């Protein structure tokens, strides 16, 4: 679809082409007291788009728990902030760049990282870590390989250049994402609480500046069309809007912003993300309860003959909007010059609550600020469970249905499935050491960073399981939070708070809306139960292609704290003779499992229910064992169940070691090995400590059993079932992705 930018006439077709309904158009006219002109219409279309305005999600998001004693800043700002003691705060947020990455994977992913970095440093925090959550179709498709290769390169090149370590993430391959990959990036920053800065355009008379890159035609209509519409066959047409990232300028912008904030010159600052100048200026005025006046003829441009419409809606990257006292302009300019960044005064803060735009002497827009930000329509509806769920939930296999599945074959299949295999191919392309604080990098359950100048450690993870959410939205939402909490617990940390990225299909469809509402309810309940408020997040709808919607995929980014980093659970500390201890009950639950998907090719059944009480006690038990110095190594039990956790644990040990896994005799073999029941961990303890450990667990009333040992022969042995050579298993695990990626490359 094309919009003729020169046509000043706002016809019904033009309105429709902007994705504005007739009702919405009427509301706009009421708010303005007149018809909008074309530029104003474009502004509304973006600000009222799902991506900027959250019209389908805002009402529901309000139900998420977002407060707590540690919350310094909840949702609504550029990022959330958490108190970690010692006068320090952690600022963090997650963003999606799904549609831009589908169109141009390298630049789409790179600019996604750029955007989330800016969200964090605009708060005055220095970014200290990046994580990412990725979903693609299966790797046998050359186009999927193309997307995967370039998304990973784009993420890596951007973060590497800016100098922020990428310390963790996840990648899942499933054909549900074939036509619409998910690319979610999370950034974590650190600052002294006193430096926390917000996006406020306060103080009428203060001046408004653009700092950073010049403005081109990049991403015009990026936010509304790319993020708020389904990907159809005509995506080729939206191609010229692709934004190109410039991580070098971002690095300068980062340093200049922190220096400006440190100098006290800045009154308010915000990066220009989706809908660029328009959203940043109107949001800043809304927060401060002011108005704003801009002269866009002053905005430095990269291209000739840009219209007001284009300048206002451009999504050129690496730009910030700064509000400062004009009397301190020379200080501002000195810092901008130091970092070789253009900084230009383009307007001022007013007191009339109007967002007013001039082009030279001509007024091109005059819209009440709140009409853009607060008056966005909010859609809520009640919907029934979709029909597809009932058969999944009724699934109950015949007894003996797995008799033909050899456990060792199932294990090797699981280990070699790209979703479960080693992700070194990915994270070796990410600098995960820069800033020299990475104590546990990618490859473990969670990453752990030293907070320099303190004894503390900050644990980070990102998790989600779209297949679970598809099979049971409520449980799936809750399980994502529980799994993230388990990841942090497994390195010895206590979970503090989350950010989320809610990736769903078209919310105007009832099935999708139901998935969204229920998944959110699951996330909310889990966050309440596990005491991890939601301090920031992002909603990404319309993730669908001609093949249908993606699995509903809320991804959870969680941070946790370790008071004394010396007390971390290091990956891979165990010796021959150490005992394997299963903390939690034996597994039994195979609904929605990896075994079903990767071995049997089925997506059915219900994922396990989350027992919040059990999650809390098992996590408490791990921390108690760790405080008592009893844990050698630890893995949480997730995808692929105990059998896969034991293999991963083994791969972390010295190359000459193996494991012996004892199943329990009375229950079903496949359930014990591959069941994905929640609230469970696999730990090693030394032989001498075994009694102490089991006593402690008994006191805490946590189910547990010894389930094997670490052995001096390099094999994976399921006692009474058979064994497989460790080298063979490890090669499968390590090489699954590299081997798949050796296949031919293409540019499509």
């Amino acid at each position, binding site marked *: 679809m094309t919009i003729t930018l020169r046509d000043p006439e706002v016809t019904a077709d033009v309105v429709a082409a902007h994705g504005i309904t007739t009702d919405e158009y009427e509301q706009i006219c009421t708010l303005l007291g007149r018809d909008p002109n074309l530029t104003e219409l474009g502004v509304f279309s973006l600000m009222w788009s799902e991506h900027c305005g959250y019209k389908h999600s805002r009402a529901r998001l309000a139900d998420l728990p977002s407060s707590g004693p540690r919350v310094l800043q909840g949702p609504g700002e550029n990022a959330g902030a958490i108190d970690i003691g010692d006068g320090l705060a952690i600022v963090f947020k997650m963003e999606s760049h799904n549609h831009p990455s589908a169109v141009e994977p390298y630049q789409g992913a790179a600019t996604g990282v750029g955007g989330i970095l800016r969200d964090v440093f605009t708060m005055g925090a220095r970014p200290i870590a990046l994580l990412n959550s990725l979903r693609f179709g299966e790797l046998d498709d050359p186009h999927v390989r193309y997307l995967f290769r370039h998304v990973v390169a784009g993420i*890596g090149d951007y973060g590497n250049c800016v100098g922020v370590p990428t310390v963790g993430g996840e990648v899942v391959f499933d054909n549900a994402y074939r036509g619409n990959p998910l690319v979610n990036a999370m950034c974590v920053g650190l600052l002294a609480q006193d430096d926390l800065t917000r996006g406020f355009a306060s103080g009428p008379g203060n001046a408004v500046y653009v700092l950073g890159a010049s403005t081109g035609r990049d991403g015009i209509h990026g936010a509304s069309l790319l993020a708020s519409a389904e990907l159809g066959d005509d995506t080729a047409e939206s191609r010229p809007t692709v934004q190109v990232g410039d991580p070098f300028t971002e690095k300068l912008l980062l340093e200049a912003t922190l220096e400006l904030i440190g100098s006290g010159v800045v009154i308010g600052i915000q990066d220009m993300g989706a809908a660029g100048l328009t959203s940043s200026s109107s949001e800043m005025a809304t927060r401060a309860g002011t108005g704003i006046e801009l002269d866009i003829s002053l905005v430095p441009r990269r291209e000739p003959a840009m219209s007001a419409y284009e300048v206002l809606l451009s999504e050129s990257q690496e730009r910030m909007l700064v509000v400062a006292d004009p009397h301190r302009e020379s200080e501002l300019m000195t810092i901008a010059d130091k970092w070789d960044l253009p900084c230009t005064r383009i307007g001022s803060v007013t007191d009339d609550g109007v967002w007013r735009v001039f082009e030279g002497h001509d007024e091109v827009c005059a819209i009440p600020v709140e009409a853009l930000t607060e008056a966005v329509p909010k859609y809520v509806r009640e919907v029934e469970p979709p029909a597809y769920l009932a058969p999944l939930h009724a699934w109950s296999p015949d007894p003996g249905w797995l008799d033909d599945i050899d456990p060792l074959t199932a294990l090797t299949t699981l280990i070699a499935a790209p979703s479960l295999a080693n992700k070194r191919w990915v994270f070796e392309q990410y600098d995960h050491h820069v800033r020299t604080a990475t104590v546990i990098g990618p490859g473990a359950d969670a990453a752990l960073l030293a907070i320099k100048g303190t004894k503390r450690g900050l644990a980070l993870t990102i998790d989600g399981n779209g297949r679970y959410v598809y099979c049971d939205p409520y449980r799936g939402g809750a399980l994502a939070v529980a799994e993230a909490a388990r990841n942090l617990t497994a390195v010895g940390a206590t979970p503090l708070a989350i950010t989320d990225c809610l990736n769903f299909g078209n919310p105007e469809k009832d099935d999708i809306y139901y998935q969204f509402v229920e998944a959110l309810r699951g996330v909310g309940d889990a966050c309440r139960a596990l005491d991890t408020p939601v301090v920031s997040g992002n909603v990404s709808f319309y993730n669908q292609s001609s093949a249908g919607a993606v699995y509903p995929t809320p991804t959870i980014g969680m941070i946790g704290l370790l008071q004394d980093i010396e007390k971390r659970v290091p990956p891979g500390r165990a010796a021959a003779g150490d005992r394997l201890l299963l903390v939690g009950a034996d597994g039994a639950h195979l609904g929605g499992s990896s075994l079903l998907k990767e071995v049997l090719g089925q997506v059915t059944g219900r994922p396990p229910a989350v027992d919040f009480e059990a999650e809390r006690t098992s996590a408490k038990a791990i921390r108690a064992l760790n405080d008592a110095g009893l844990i050698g190594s630890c893995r949480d039990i997730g995808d692929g169940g105990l059998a896969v956790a034991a293999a991963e644990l083994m791969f972390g040990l010295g190359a000459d070691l193996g494991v012996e896994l004892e199943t329990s005799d009375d229950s079903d073999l496949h359930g014990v090995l591959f069941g994905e029941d929640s609230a469970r961990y696999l730990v090693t303890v030394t032989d001498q400590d075994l009694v102490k450990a089991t006593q402690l667990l008994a006191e805490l009333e946590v189910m547990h059993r010894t389930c094997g040992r670490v052995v001096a022969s390099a094999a994976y042995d399921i006692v009474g079932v058979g064994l497989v050579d460790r080298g063979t298993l490890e090669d499968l695990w390590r090489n699954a992705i590299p081997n798949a990626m050796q296949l031919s490359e293409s540019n499509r």
Partner: protein
Amino acid sequence: MSKVSIGVVRFPGTNCDQDVFDAVADIELARPVWLWHKETNLQDVKGVVLAGGFSYGDYLRAGAIARFSPIMEEVIRFASDGGPVLGICNGFQILTEAELLPGALMRNNRLTFVCRPQRLRVEARDTPFTRRYAHRQIVSFPVAHAEGSFAADASVIERLEDEGRVVFRYVDERGGNGPDANPNGSMNDIAGVINKVGNVLGLMPHPDRAMHEMVGSADGRGIFEGLVETAA
């Protein structure tokens, strides 16, 4: 006794500046001093480190643009007066572009960025930077770069080898020359070289990221200790 000041150069896009600053500060007798690329005065430092990162975004070729910064004229003068200069990663790239070191650092043969722990063999310990190490000691410093493949004309490589100027060589986990040793396709597995006089060292791996066991290795201290000792 007064501390030895060591300059840490910051170009636009340098991103291991703080890491190097901290590493120098970690050496008892040393005092790190920031040197901004626009400056034309080395503030009487006794040694200079060019830190890693992406000066000017690595645009065109890594190190190509930074080499023309005002501060580089002073660094070149300092080096020709015999002052110790250490270039790590992007710093190494800048030193080759400035022709203080021979050869060039080309794109990794695998064409992707590579970040991993890396073993190295200390091939020359008669340099100011490596005297803390044992002969042929195997050390572990992480690598993190996209353009680290050392290349030069065959005659140059031959001369470097003959003159014992290959200071670090990539080795595999077992300390050998197996197929996994070389992360980037460098000729002769070269990880670091020194100039003829012996006061300018460049290497791709990061000793600044190997200062504490907690982050995986403390093997990098020796280089900074050597630098400070020489500068004193």
